[in-house]
């Protein structure tokens, strides 16, 4: 983007106040407003507007002795929650049916002063940067009356491109989490006593008085944050090197380290997947976790799925099924721990292919390398179980088109992880990926962590006088054998600064609650030269302070004040540099405001990367492939290393491959289980590691026979979080203190274990009971690539079916949705987004075991084919909004009816709860409120979400009524009002449902079916389009003739692909023997 245009862009944004409202509005305009809305009625939300201003550090150091906010003290006990009253009413309704009940008086409390640009009832949207992981996605925060109610990916942000993963969506639940610390706490023994900020700073100041060895342990960040901490450390008299950064996701460290070794640049190349036609993954996990999951999924969705007659190829070599592997066209199961060996033989095949690229010098390096390790490679075929022919074919594929080799996942958690990345680098040099699909010279990803910090910390920690652990949980995310806990306990002063209390707080001497990222200032640099700003979207919801501000306060108390009144002003100082870098004509204030409005600014830089170096020496350390049953503990695709395990919406979303919610499980290949005589839900003892532990087994197809997988992230032992406490098991306890010698990351894979059946059972809360499609033909459809190509220009008409009755009058709109099964990668972000948008309650493990999950959109996952090589299909199923809805006709009270715009409307307050509609629904998408879903309880867990996080635009359903997907009718209504105001119709793409909006794979499109040019209409006419349970219209079978508003695009499979054995596999598909073995597993 030229500078001229950049400036114009800024000015344009300046002139569009309705898109992004003034960024610092959140600071200037108190967010304590609450207006007549249905859920903002309890007295504890009446935040006095006065108190806080003094407590904030924006008033400079002069206000140091200011009072702490007294919010929440206004006796919320006296006010019965409104919903309680209602419940009471309904219970006593029969008795008091004719009694004249005095209605409860409700209060309306307007502002004293009207905040700028703020109209009660109209959402205000802020742009900020997600702080859940180090990827740095841009998010838009929709706030109502000052409260964030929903997060959405920023459509303009180049990283998120409008999408957001489940964890990012769930952040809003983290913001209001009732178990966030309310004020600082000081530990006395096992007791944590509250203290006010003033005292705690004084205590800290005196404790740190003459201490010089002060350290900071923090999580990864690409922004200015680490720099600030270094400055603080120096100011405190410590050393800037005492900042230790650690991310449990080993990919950052290993990739950065590998590139440092190979090219001398300790950064991560940016994988531009949208340019790659052929992707070869070696244990890669860019759909699960990776380094930037939304960005990669977006890229993948633009290059790989079928569109315009062609599609890419994704080949994955992995030892266990991952979400990423489930998207592979060709998936090869290799022995666990043999990823590096697989990469080596791929490298050899690539090198030996005549089309391989790379500069002469680089090729020489590779040749020398291959020569030195000829023996290892020769043995690698045997060890990984991949034939040479197969690898040659794969190499040929790679060299025929823009391509890429990616490695990672669980392979980035063993001792060879950096070596694997080194081989991958060499392979990518040979494919010519650098510069085309791998951005290392321009637009690279800065590494969020410094390599080797953990090892350094272990050495230096015993000497530290004080340690601040910020936004990081090393006690949980580093295997216990590393002794982090005892190490921390020995530090004289341990201060934990966390937005949500974790294991560190348990042992910390002082806990300083930090702001959630939605309350904080900050920035990230997800791509070099591209800055993404973070700004508060809400006034602090509890008595917490931003970690950086706490340091400023602390320094002030120690008379070491930095010349900044708060972190924001420090940050603005740094941004002046970026301002000069970008070089607009406007002044800094305008620039900064415009950046905040938009959320980011970027000016891609470039650099020169050196030639490939000699890598031979590093491979002397290559560990052989481990033997026996190998335990792997990959990051959980829902909450990564367990950082968001306290969010019920994520726990309830369930793992997408096993569909297990609220638990940990040991995944084994069904074949292995049969051999070992194990059955699903059987509790086994995992022995052979440091500590043994019990876990229930689950048969998962697509695993190598020697592979045993327990995702990490659950099994917290932190009693301060009821949700995650003792939820599942933590497999890390089994891993001995081993590290990848090059990156210093703890090893959490490739552990040889043995399983002992304990004889006990533990029911895993798997939401899906049937794992295959049970020979149903019109639920999930697949077409071959040839078929799809042949029919590319053919159009189908799904809406013309013979009918006895005349069709309904055609109105201006008929809302419809189209879901591309080729694109959906099963990440589950839609489930989370839907739950948060529509106030869907979480019900807890016990209820899920009964089959009472409440998701309005569920992700059905089906396995096809042989158990070791399954084809996986994900199918999001929500209310299909049938024109001839079987549910409507059966409702006795008109609680579910058809609206003129094709929506199947559910009127909660009319529902009497006969549940007939749910029986009649062939798609089983209706959900019944079996209980009053209390906001304080999830199953046996005592805590849930704060009612303030509820979307005020959607009714909260009470006990005994049916509910279901509404196509986000509130959004439709708003869009139509907007359009009507401007005297036009709703434009295509103007209104997005919550699931569609967040989908990182763009698998969902939504719009007006009566507009023939809308995307959804076009997709509905596509030859691949079909209606669920719509029979086979081409042959005159119309199925149930429900005429859903949701159409699906059939999954395009690749069976005739020349390079692979896929054709054979397709032949296997439906083979009786294969079916049988699969069926046996299902029977478990």
């Amino acid at each position, binding site marked *: 983007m030229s500078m001229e245009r950049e400036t114009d862009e800024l000015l344009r944004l300046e002139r569009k106040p309705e898109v992004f409202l003034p960024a610092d509005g959140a600071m200037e305009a108190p967010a304590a407003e609450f207006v007549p809305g249905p*859920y903002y009625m309890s007295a504890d939300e009446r935040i006095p507007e006065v108190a806080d201003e003094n407590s904030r550090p924006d008033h400079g150091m002069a206000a140091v002795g200011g009072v702490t906010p007294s919010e929440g003290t206004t006796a919320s006990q006296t006010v019965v929650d409104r919903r309680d009253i209602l419940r009471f009413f309904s219970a006593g309704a*029969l008795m008091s049916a004719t009694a004249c009940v005095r209605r409860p008086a409700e209060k309306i409390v*307007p502002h004293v002063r009207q905040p700028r640009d703020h109209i009660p009832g109209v959402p205000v949207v802020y742009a900020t940067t997600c702080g859940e992981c180090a990827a740095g996605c841009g998010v838009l925060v929709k706030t109502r009356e000052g409260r964030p109610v929903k997060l959405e990916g920023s459509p303009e942000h180049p990283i998120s491109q409008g999408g957001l993963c489940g964890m990012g969506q769930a952040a809003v639940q983290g913001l209001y989490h009732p178990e966030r610390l309310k004020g600082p706490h000081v530990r006395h023994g096992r007791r944590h006593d509250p203290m006010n900020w003033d005292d705690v700073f004084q205590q800290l100041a005196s404790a740190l008085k003459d201490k010089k060895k002060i350290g900071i342990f923090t999580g990864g960040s690409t922004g200015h944050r680490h720099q600030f901490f270094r400055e603080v450390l120096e100011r405190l008299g410590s050393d800037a090197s005492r900042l230790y950064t650690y991310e449990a996701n080993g990919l950052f460290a290993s990739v950065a380290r590998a590139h440092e070794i190979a090219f001398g640049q300790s950064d991560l190349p940016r994988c531009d997947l949208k340019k790659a036609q052929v992707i070869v993954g070696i244990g890669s996990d860019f759909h699960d976790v990776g380094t930037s999951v939304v960005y990669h999924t977006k890229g993948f969705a633009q290059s790989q799925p079928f569109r315009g007659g062609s599609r890419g190829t994704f080949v994955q070599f992995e030892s266990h099924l991952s979400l990423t592997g489930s998207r592979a066209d060709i998936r090869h199961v290799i022995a666990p721990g043999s990823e590096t060996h697989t990469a080596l033989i791929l490298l050899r095949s690539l090198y030996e292919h005549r089309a391989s690229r790379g500069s002469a010098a680089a090729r020489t390096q590779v040749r020398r390398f291959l020569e030195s390790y000829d023996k290892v490679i020769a043995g690698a075929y045997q060890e990984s179980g991949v034939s040479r022919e197969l690898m040659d074919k794969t190499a040929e594929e790679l060299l025929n088109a823009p391509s890429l080799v990616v490695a990672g996942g669980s392979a980035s958690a063993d001792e060879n992880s950096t070596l694997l990345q080194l081989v991958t680098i060499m392979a990518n040099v040979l494919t010519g990926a650098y510069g085309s699909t791998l951005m290392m010279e321009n637009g690279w990803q800065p590494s969020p962590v410094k390599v080797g910090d953990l090892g350094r910390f272990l050495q230096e920690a015993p000497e530290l006088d004080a340690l601040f652990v910020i936004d990081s949980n090393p006690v949980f995310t580093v295997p216990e054998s590393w002794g982090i806990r005892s190490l921390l306990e020995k530090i004289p002063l341990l201060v934990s600064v966390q937005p949500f209390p974790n294991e560190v707080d348990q042992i910390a001497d002082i806990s300083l609650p930090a702001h959630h990222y939605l309350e904080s200032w900050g920035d990230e640099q997800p791509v070099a030269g591209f800055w993404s700003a973070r700004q508060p979207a809400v006034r602090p919801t509890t008595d917490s302070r931003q970690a950086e501000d706490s340091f400023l306060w602390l320094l002030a108390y120690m008379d070491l004040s930095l010349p900044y009144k708060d972190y924001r002003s420090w940050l603005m100082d740094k941004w002046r540099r970026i301002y000069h870098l970008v070089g607009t004509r406007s002044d800094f204030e305008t620039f900064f405001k415009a950046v905040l409005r938009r959320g980011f600014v970027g000016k891609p830089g470039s650099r020169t990367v050196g030639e490939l170096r000699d890598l031979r020496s590093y491979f002397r350390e290559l560990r052989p492939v481990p033997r026996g049953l190998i335990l792997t503990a990959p990051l959980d695709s829902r909450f990564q290393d367990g950082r968001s395990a306290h969010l019920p919406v994520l726990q309830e979303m369930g793992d997408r491959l096993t569909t297990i919610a609220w638990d940990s499980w040991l995944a084994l290949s069904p074949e292995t289980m049969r051999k070992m005589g194990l059955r699903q839900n059987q509790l086994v003892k995992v022995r052979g590691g440091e500590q043994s532990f019990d876990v229930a087994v689950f048969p998962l197809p697509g695993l190598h026979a020697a592979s045993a997988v327990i995702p990490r992230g659950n099994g917290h032992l932190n009693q301060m979080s009821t949700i995650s406490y003792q939820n599942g098991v933590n497999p890390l306890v089994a891993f001995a203190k081993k590290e990848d010698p090059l990156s210093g990351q703890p090893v959490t894979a490739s552990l040889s274990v043995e399983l002992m059946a304990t004889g006990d059972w533990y029911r895993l809360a798997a939401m899906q009971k049937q794992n295959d499609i049970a020979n149903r033909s019109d639920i999930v459809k697949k077409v071959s690539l040839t078929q799809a190509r042949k029919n590319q220009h053919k159009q189908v008409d799904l809406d013309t079916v013979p009918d006895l009755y005349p069709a309904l009058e055609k109105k201006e709109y008929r809302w419809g949705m189209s879901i591309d099964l080729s694109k959906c990668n099963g990440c589950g972000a839609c489930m989370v987004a839907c739950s948060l948008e529509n106030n869907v309650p979480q019900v807890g493990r016990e209820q899920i075991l009964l089959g009472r999950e409440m998701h309005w959109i569920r992700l059905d996952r089906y396995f096809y084919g042989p158990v070791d090589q399954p084809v996986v299909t994900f199918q999001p199923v929500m209310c299909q909004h049938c024109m001839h809805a079987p549910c409507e006709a059966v409702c006795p009270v008109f609680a579910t009816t058809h609206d003129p715009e094709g929506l199947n409307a559910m009127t909660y307050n009319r529902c009497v709860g006969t549940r007939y509609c749910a029986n009649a629904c062939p798609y089983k998408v209706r959900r019944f409120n079996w209980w009053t879903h209390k906001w304080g309880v999830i199953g046996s867990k005592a805590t849930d979400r704060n009612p303030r996080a509820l979307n005020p635009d959607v009714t909260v359903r009470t006990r005994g009524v049916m509910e279901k997907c509404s196509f986000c009718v509130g959004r439709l209504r708003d869009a139509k009002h907007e359009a009507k105001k401007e005297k036009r119709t709703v434009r295509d793409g103007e209104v997005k449902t919550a699931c569609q909006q967040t989908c990182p794979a763009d698998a969902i499109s939504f719009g007006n079916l009566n507009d023939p040019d809308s995307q959804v209409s076009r997709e509905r006419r596509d030859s691949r389009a079909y209606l669920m349970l719509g029979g086979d219209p081409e042959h005159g079978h119309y199925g149930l003739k429900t005429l859903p508003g949701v159409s699906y695009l059939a999954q395009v499979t690749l069976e005739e692909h020349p390079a692979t054995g896929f054709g054979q596999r397709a032949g296997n598909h439906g083979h009786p023997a294969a079916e049988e073995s699969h069926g046996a597993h299902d029977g478990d």
Partner: protein
Amino acid sequence: MLQQFWFLLLLALSILVCLVLMPPSTDQSSGYQYKPFIMWTPGDHVNDSTQNEVTYGYHPDQPLPFSHKLHAGDRDIPCQFCHSSASKSTVAGIPTVETCMGCHNYVNTDAEPIKQLKESFDKKKPIEWTRVHNLPHYVRFSHQVHLRARDSKGELLLGKTADEVCMACHGPVKEMTTASQYAPLQMGWCVDCHNRIREPATESKAAVPFAPVNCNVCHY
């Protein structure tokens, strides 16, 4: 003896029938008229709602003796001068203290209520008004849409002027001292209007109601 019993039984039954079929008393003389068949069944009011029989004329005590009659009536201040978000948002909004102080910095500053108001403004302590019009939580009502409702000729549907539109539902606010609930705010009342106000029939087209009556207009 048995005869009397039968007689009494019949009498009781007929009273019961009359009670069920009796239209609710409307003490307000509004343009709105119940259909003859509007009746009350027990299910109407116990539906988890805040609604109950106390609907008409509900006028709770307010923290300040604000008079609509004085402001809107005698002084003729337009409704939306204070309830400014009515045309922009779903909610009409209660004016901020700042809005009040816009005038009352200068006007009638000696009066006791105004002193309270000033105090509230100075101490930044919002005034807690008691809600008069209280829809059940499952009803989505948008002020702006109703304020903007126009017929095909572009005329306001619910009144000639903006204030009249407000008063179509809120009643003669200009004559009320304390705000008082005028309409029953029950579903039948809403639906009646949605059905009644129609585009006049033309030769080619029958009269079509302007307002939709499908369920998810208000309930979602």
